């Protein structure tokens, strides 16, 4: 109940700031919040925005999935195995600093104009961000725990399954949550390149048509999408990493 009240207060605060800004500026490019919300509902009811939401959701989910699914084993191996880190670490550190988004035109040329280059770029950026977090997490397993596992005669696979993966899982989820802003920004950028669907495309198209209510309606939906995904990762953390939450509460 307290949480719902908190959320309501935040929404009211945003709406008040928005309304004040609109009243002060008195410009067509910043309509009041109520008009944009009305437009938003209208576009959702008549289905115009649904296909764009679907397209954006699919891209961000698939991009996050592939980036994470590759980052988890690579990060775990790099963090836990000194040998792997020795051979891959330097190359990884070099590539990590390169801004991947500048390769978008190259990726589009290579992969075409469909969903693939968008999904690929989102996943690629996430892969590098998450791998660093997972590598550091796997690298910080307390020696006693690692020794306990060895003392029980665990195989490498068992060490990964019972020790490295569960140790890294909370950090993977935290990393997903903190990377969400980047993912949505990337989604927006990629959907403005050779695209005819998605919320990013719809926002820019509405701006070009000077249809500001429609533009803000799409911004609202994209923001809600971010909030929903952020909350989803929060629920996932509560379900899968109960031990970590208990530890944090205790400290």
């Amino acid at each position: 109940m307290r949480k719902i009240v908190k959320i309501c207060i935040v929404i009211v605060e945003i709406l008040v700031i928005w309304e004040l800004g609109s009243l002060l500026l008195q410009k067509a490019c910043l309509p009041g919040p109520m008009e944009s919300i009305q437009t938003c509902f209208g576009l959702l009811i008549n289905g115009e925005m649904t296909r764009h939401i679907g397209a954006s959701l699919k891209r961000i989910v698939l991009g996050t999935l592939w980036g994470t699914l590759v980052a988890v084993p690579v990060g775990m191996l790099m963090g836990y195995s000194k040998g792997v880190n020795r051979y891959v670490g330097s190359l990884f550190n070099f590539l990590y600093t390169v801004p991947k988004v500048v390769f978008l035109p190259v990726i589009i040329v290579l992969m075409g104009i469909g969903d693939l280059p968008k999904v690929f770029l989102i996943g690629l950026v996430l892969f590098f961000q998450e791998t660093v977090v997972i590598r550091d997490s796997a690298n910080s397993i307390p020696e006693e725990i690692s020794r306990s596992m060895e003392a029980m005669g665990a195989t490498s696979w068992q060490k990964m399954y019972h020790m490295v993966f569960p140790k890294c899982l909370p950090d993977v989820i935290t990393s997903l949550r903190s990377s969400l802003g980047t993912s949505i920004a990337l989604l927006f950028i990629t959907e403005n390149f050779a695209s005819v669907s998605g919320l990013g495309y719809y926002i820019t198209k509405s701006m070009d048509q000077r249809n500001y209510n429609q533009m803000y309606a799409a911004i609202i939906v994209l923001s809600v999408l971010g909030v929903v995904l952020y909350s989803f990762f929060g629920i996932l953390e509560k379900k899968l990493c109960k031990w970590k939450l208990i530890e944090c509460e205790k400290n």
Partner: protein
Amino acid sequence: MLHVKDVTLAYGDEVVLEKINLSIEEGKCLVILGPSGCGKTTLLHLMAGLKQPSQGFIEYQGKRVVEPIQEISMIFQGYGLFPWKTVRENLILPYKIRKEKVNEGELAGVVEELRLKKHLNKYPSQLSGGQKQRVAIGRAMLNNARIILMDEPFSALDMEIKKDLQARLKALFENRNITVVMVTHSMEEALAWGDWIAVFRKNGVTFDKIVENPYKDKIEKKEEFMQMIS
């Protein structure tokens, strides 16, 4: 049962342990006594098969210990429990590692003996030091350990818990005829536990003497024991 023969461990020019010789009989307790940093824990790691000596060898029932084996379990100073596993999951981990079905009867027996029943669904962060200790011992027992190596097992516990836990564990190990090797820097713990006590030299590296403890369970005889080993 467990023999340490002429064991030397050196990292380059630095000698950590030199010419260590020990023999431990089944069901007995050997306490390794010495100041911090003298190589006590390293010696336990060698006995557990977690490290290999530069010279000499360690033998368990006629076989060289070159890697961790099921019969020798080590309980670390911080207990080595997995924070992401509940008490039950920590306890049944040896079955998972051995790819065996959990023997619920055996598990229930150990849980009962160590009074862990009401803590089974808790995580290690929700347990006291003494409870963590009992879980670590339970896990070692379910790993079918015949020898338990304990590294400063009571150093983090307060006096009351220590007394109660020590009495309970001693009875448990005696009932199950488990051999114990314990590392400590506390003379009281050495006297309370050791059938044999190995005393490290002041500067470490090797033993000064290994003596049979005539004052087992008689902590008040600390002075006499100190005279005996000096």
